[in-house]
């Protein structure tokens, strides 16, 4: 029980930081911590092989999504500034 409480506190704190941060690139690591927390909670609530596979698939696909978002932000900056 204490495990879920700690992770819930971390996720809520990260969501608050995500809301008050303006810089889009600074937000990406916070989003990464939330993904870690959600993947952890999925397995902790379903301690079964299916729960473990679900959190693996969730986390890998979330990372693929984060990769695409960071790529897009860097590309948009390049177009805006001609860097």
């Amino acid at each position, binding site marked *: 029980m204490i495990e879920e409480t700690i992770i819930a506190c971390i996720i809520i704190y990260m969501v608050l930081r995500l809301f008050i941060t303006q810089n889009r*690139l600074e937000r990406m690591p916070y989003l990464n911590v939330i993904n870690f927390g959600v993947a952890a909670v999925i397995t902790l609530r379903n*301690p079964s092989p299916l729960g473990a596979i679900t959190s693996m698939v969730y986390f890998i696909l979330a990372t693929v999504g984060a990769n695409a978002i960071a790529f897009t932000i860097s590309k948009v900056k390049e177009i805006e500034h001609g860097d």
Partner: protein
Amino acid sequence: MNEIISIAIATVLAWLNFVLIDIWMGLPEAPGVRGAKAIGKSIEKRGGDLGGGYFSGNIVCSPDASAGTLLASCGYYGFGGPEGGLIAALFVYFGNRMCADPGYAGTTGALSITFIIWIASHFGITPNYFIVGMVIAILTIQGLYHPLSSKLIGKIARKMDRKVIK
């Protein structure tokens, strides 16, 4: 009280596992993908270290030893044995390929934490403590204050002779 001590020990082991393997595999040396470069430069602009910034960017953009540590703990907990860690290593390997990242840090991290959990479970530190420990460990690097954590990573990287390649 016993639980808190177990979580603290698991956090330290998970932190050392993913930081040392990621630095040894050269994450602070160069950004693996383009998004990682942008995140690294952004952290440097806010007063951090470029090597530590690339480290953070690489963690965000592809499943490295941090992901390997979390998923191997999840696999060990869900499957109830070391075979879960091996399945996690396979998933992390596929994730690396999908993100076009050439590194093998994730697979190495998953296999090493599986071994560490196997030893620690003999002393009563079960994989669920490692799952929480990894979330706390990633919070210290990615979630608290990027300039400070990137400087710490840069310092460890220079000690291990993994400087940023210009």
